[in-house]
């Protein structure tokens, strides 16, 4: 326990790095997936190849990607950019399916009504299609966020891994406390991130709450 007190600074530092390395790729991935998914719904022949390609990318082991990327990007092997790019690739490869499915879940009559009252295609995407797609997109967003948080630790093998560095530290010193702290904080981070996403989804889809209210009893 004294170890925790003596190393609060280090733990805080790794926690912040962990959060940064896990969340930045989620944001970047979302910013890439939404336009890409939109294009794939406009040109529907693109959708299935994109989803299949995403499946192949997602099956690549993270440690392999962390190491191979520098050769492709020209970055240093021990650069955080590799982790961010690798996790962004995972995010896009998983999220693209949800974005496409989500945009496809917009009922045709809703779309036609929007066109009829004069929505342009960009305005319709932002004001009609994306809000309706939120539940499906968020389902994917929750999966990748939690997966990213656990995957960042693997970076510790190559020396950049947020809380993962507590694992290698504990292992090298044959000392359990940092490992337990690292695992516990990693799980906690995943839980909190998931709860925030659930909350955000509720805020973004106020109409969904109406459906869940219990039916009024008629006397």
């Amino acid at each position, binding site marked *: 326990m004294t170890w925790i007190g003596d190393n609060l600074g280090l733990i805080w530092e790794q926690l912040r790095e962990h959060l940064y390395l896990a969340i930045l790729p989620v944001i970047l991935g979302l910013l890439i997936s939404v336009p890409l998914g939109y294009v794939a719904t406009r040109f529907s022949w693109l959708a299935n190849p994109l989803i299949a390609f995403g499946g*192949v990318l997602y*099956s*690549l*082991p*993270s*440690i*392999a*990607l*962390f*190491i*191979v990327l*520098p*050769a492709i990007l020209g970055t240093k*092997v021990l650069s955080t950019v590799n982790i961010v790019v690798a996790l962004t690739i995972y995010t896009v490869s998983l999220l693209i399916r949800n974005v496409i499915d989500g945009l496809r879940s917009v009922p045709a009559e809703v779309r036609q009504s929007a066109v009829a009252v004069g929505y342009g295609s960009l305005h319709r995407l932002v004001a009609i299609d994306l809000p309706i797609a939120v539940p499906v997109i968020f389902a994917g967003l929750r*999966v990748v966020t*939690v*997966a990213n*948080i*656990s995957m*960042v*630790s*693997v970076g*510790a*093998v*190559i*020396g950049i*891994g947020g*809380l*993962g560095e*507590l*694992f*290698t530290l*504990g*292992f090298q010193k*044959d*000392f*359990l406390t940092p*490992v*337990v702290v*690292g*695992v516990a904080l*990693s*799980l906690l981070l*995943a*839980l909190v991130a998931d709860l925030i996403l659930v909350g955000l989804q509720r805020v973004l889809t106020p109409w969904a709450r109406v459906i869940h209210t219990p039916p009024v009893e008629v006397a």
Partner: protein
Amino acid sequence: MWEYLSDSYNWSGPEGIWARILQHLWYTFAALGLSTLIALPIGLRIGHTRRGAFLAINLGNAARALPSLGLLMLAVLLTDQIGFLPVLIALVALGIPPILASTYAGLSGVDPATIDAARGMGMTGREILTKVEIPIAMPLIISGVRGATLQIVSTATIAALVSLGGLGRYVVDGLKLRDFPQMFTGALLVALLAIALDLLFAVLGRVAVSDGLKVD
């Protein structure tokens, strides 16, 4: 990297690439076998009796948050030994949740009317499980095992951190020596092995699925 790969000296011998691939496969299949042995009966039981579903669903979700590296280090320190046992524990802990969750999901997705029909024909509970529920759930069960395999094969890389062999050796040794071609070789081989195993399961998925499910 090609220099490393094209040198036949690097391929043979007890520390050659073939030996490393075999070690990597051994860790993978030992852990996969044990995970299946544990998770499949539990998943079948929960799916068949429909009791304990809460556990199956939440375990699957929570497991995605488990950091595999932390799990391995935890296993090393708790068993107080370095080597095969902690690696096996960590890999099995990764493999159980996807198999358990998808087995349950597969069984719970069986149409109750189908089960009623089976019962009406006089099938016993065991017959319903083996002749109706498992065949119908098979695609999902296989996709669970497939997911577990991917997780395990890529995580087996970190076995090298605790002095074991496998393809992770190239990554860990290469990092220590700043020998980046060696690291790339290891990473590339792990990725190829993962894709090869994934294809194997895709084929298995087609073969093992009952003809009755293929009718549209």
